[in-house]
C-alpha cells in the first residue's frame, strides 16, 4: 500500500489546450494518505474518472506528476504501477473458473504455484466465494462477478492502491449495502489504500473516510462526511450533498447582519469578504426551523418521504426547503428561523469565515 501524491496534475483530452476550459481536469494538487479510503464524488463529466484513470495509468496527464510513496510513477505503465482496478461493469474472464480468474494476475507475474494456491484460497475466503471456486465464472450473478474483479486486485499482496470506478452501478440495491460494508471491512482489516469513484453521495459518505468532491474538473473540497455536511466549502458541495441540498440565497452583508430581501438575520460571527461579486448565505434544510416566529413564508409544496417531510416554501422570492420531522407541526401562518450554527456565508461560491 502506498501514499499517493498528486503533484500539480492537469489533463486535457485535446491537444494544445489554451484556456482553462480545455482541461477536463484542472489543477489537482493533493496528498492521499497510505491506507486511506477516499471517495471521488461528483456529477457526470466532472473529471473524477479522468483522475482515477490518471492514477491507474490508463491516461497520461498533460501536466504534473504522480507519486506513489514518493516515487514518480507518471511514466510507468499500468502494469508497473501495481494497482488494482474494479470497473463499472464486471470484468471477468468468462471461460475460466472463479479460481482461475483469481489466479490469473499471479500466474501472469510468474508467482510459484504453491504461493498462488495459498493466496487464491485466502482471497476466496475474504470475498466469500470459497464454495464457488470451481464454478465457471460466467454463470455468476453481477455482484459475485464484481467480487471476482475485486478479488483479482486483493490477491496481489503488493498492490499500491485499489481503485473503484463506480463499481456498484449494476448491482441490486440491497446487495449494494452488503458489498459496501464488506468493502469497508476489508479496508479496516487490511488497510488498503482505496480510491472509490461515484456520483452517489450515500455511497461516498458511507464508504470513505475522506470524500473528495469534484466539480467541473476541480476538487472543491476534501473532507470527512461530517465536514461536507456541516461546512461545505463551496455552494456546489452544499447543493450536491444532502437531500434536499443546501438552501443558497443571495444576501447583503452589513456588520454582523445579513439581509435577505426585507429581512435581517443575525450571523453567528461577523464576516466581511473583500470585493466579492456575489454574496450568498447557505443553510441546510435540517437547520431551518418552521414555526410561528421568524420570517413569514408561503408553503408551496409538502413532500412526505416517510421518515420526514420536505416542506418547500417561498420566502419572498426565495425558495427554501425545510425538513420537518414526521408528525411535526406545519402552522397555518408559517414562519421560518435559521439556526445560527447552520449558517454559512459564500463569496463568489466559496465559503468565507471561521471554523
Amino acid at each position, binding site marked *: 500500500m502506498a501514499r499517493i501524491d498528486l503533484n500539480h496534475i492537469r489533463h486535457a483530452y485535446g491537444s494544445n489546450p489554451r484556456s482553462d476550459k480545455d482541461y477536463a481536469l484542472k489543477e489537482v494538487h493533493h496528498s492521499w494518505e497510505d491506507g486511506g479510503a477516499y471517495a471521488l464524488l461528483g456529477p457526470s463529466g466532472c473529471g473524477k474518472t479522468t483522475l482515477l484513470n490518471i492514477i*491507474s495509468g*490508463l491516461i497520461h496527464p498533460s501536466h504534473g506528476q504522480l507519486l506513489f510513496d514518493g516515487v514518480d510513477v507518471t511514466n510507468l*505503465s*499500468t*502494469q508497473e504501477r501495481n*494497482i*488494482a*482496478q474494479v*470497473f*463499472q*461493469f464486471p*470484468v471477468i*474472464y*468468462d*471461460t*475460466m473458473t472463479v479460481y482461475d480468474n483469481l489466479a*490469473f*494476475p499471479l500466474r*501472469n*507475474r510468474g508467482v510459484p504455484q504453491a504461493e498462488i494456491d495459498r493466496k487464491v484460497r485466502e482471497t476466496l475466503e475474504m470475498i466469500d466465494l470459497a464454495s464457488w471456486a470451481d464454478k*465457471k465464472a*460466467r454463470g455468476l450473478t453481477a455482484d459475485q462477478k464484481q467480487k471476482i*474483479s475485486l478479488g*483479482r*486486485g486483493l490477491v496481489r499482496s503488493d498492490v499500491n492502491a485499489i481503485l473503484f470506478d463506480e463499481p456498484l452501478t449494476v448491482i441490486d440495491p440491497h446487495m449494494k449495502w452488503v458489498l459496501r460494508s464488506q468493502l469497508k471491512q476489508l479496508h479496516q482489516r487490511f488497510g488498503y489504500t482505496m480510491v472509490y469513484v461515484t456520483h452517489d453521495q450515500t455511497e461516498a459518505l458511507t464508504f470513505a473516510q475522506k470524500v473528495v468532491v469534484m466539480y467541473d474538473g476541480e476538487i472543491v473540497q476534501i473532507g470527512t462526511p461530517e465536514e461536507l455536511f456541516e461546512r461545505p466549502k463551496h455552494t456546489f458541495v452544499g447543493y450536491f450533498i444532502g437531500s434536499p441540498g443546501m438552501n443558497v440565497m443571495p444576501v447583503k452583508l452589513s456588520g454582523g447582519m445579513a439581509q435577505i430581501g426585507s429581512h435581517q438575520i443575525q450571523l453567528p460571527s461577523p464576516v466581511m469578504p473583500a470585493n466579492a461579486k456575489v454574496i450568498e448565505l447557505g443553510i441546510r434544510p435540517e437547520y431551518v426551523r418552521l414555526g410561528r416566529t421568524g420570517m413569514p413564508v408561503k408553503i408551496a409544496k409538502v413532500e412526505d418521504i416517510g421518515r420526514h417531510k420536505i416542506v418547500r416554501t417561498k420566502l419572498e422570492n426565495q425558495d427554501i426547503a425545510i425538513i420537518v420531522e414526521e408528525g411535526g407541526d406545519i402552522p397555518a401562518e408559517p414562519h421560518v428561523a435559521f439556526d445560527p450554527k447552520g449558517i454559512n456565508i459564500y463569496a463568489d461560491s466559496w465559503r468565507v469565515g471561521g471554523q
Partner: protein
Amino acid sequence: MEKTWNNKAWFMVLPVLLLVAFSAVIPLMTVVNYSVQDTFGNNQFFWAGTEWFEEVLHSERFHASLGRNLVFSFIILAIEVPLGIIIALNMPRKGWGVPVCLVLMALPLLIPWNVVGTIWQVFGRVDIGLLGRTLANLGINYNYVQNPMHAWFTVIIMDVWHWTSLVVLLCYAGLVSIPDAFYQAAKIDGASRWAVFRYIQLPKMNRVLLIAVLLRFMDSFMIYTEPFVVTGGGPGNSTTFLSIDLVKVAVGQFDLGPAAAMSIIYFLIILLLSWVFYTVMTNYDAER
C-alpha cells in the same frame, strides 16, 4: 374474451406459400421424382426405386469428387479462419483507417463469382497473366492448366482471396463489441498479448466464428462457378468438385436419374455436416 376468427388472413399467407411452392417445393419434388424413376425421353417413366441412389453411392467417381470437396473445404477453412482472425486483430479500431479497411475488406465480397473466376483465370495465365508471368520469370514452372497441384493452388488462393474478408468482417464485429474495460483489466492483471487473445478476444469471437465457419463450410462445399471458370474441373478430374461433377452428369451426359439421386445425397451431406458442425460448436460453447 372471445377470439375473433378471420379466415381471410389465410389469403395473406397465400402469396408466400405459392412463392415457396414454386421456388423450392416443386423443383425439389421434381428432383425426387427423377431420382426414383428412369426415363428415356418422350415423357415415359419407369420406376427405379433406390437403384440410382445405390449406383451413386457405390460410384468411385462420386467418392472421388466428394473426397476432393472435403479436402478443399478443410484446406480453405484451415487457412481462412486463422488468417481472418489475424487480419481482424490487426485492423484499426478508430480513426480514418476504419472505413478504409472495411471498404477494402468488403470489395472482394462484392465481385460476382464468375468475375472472380475470370480475374484469376487471366491473372494466372502463363502467357499474359501477372501472376503466371511473374512466377515464370522467377523460374517457377507454374501452369495451372496442366499441373493438378498448381490448379489446386490457384483455386485455393482464389477462394482465400475472395472469402477471407467475410471471416475478417465477422471477427471484427465480434472484436469491436468488447468493452475497453476488458483490455484495461487485462493490462492491470499483467496479461500477455497471447493471454488477452486467448481469454478475452477469442471467447468474445466465439459466436461469430461459429457463423463464419458454418457459412464458409457450406459455401466451399457448394463451390462451382470459380473453379468451373478457372480450370473447368481439370486438369483431368483434379478439381472436379461435387457440384461440377453433378453438372457434368446432369447436363453433360443428361443422366437425369443419377443426377437427381446425386443432388439429393449432396444436399443431405451438406445438411448433415452443417448440423454436426453446429451441434459440436454450440455444445462446446455451452460447456465452457
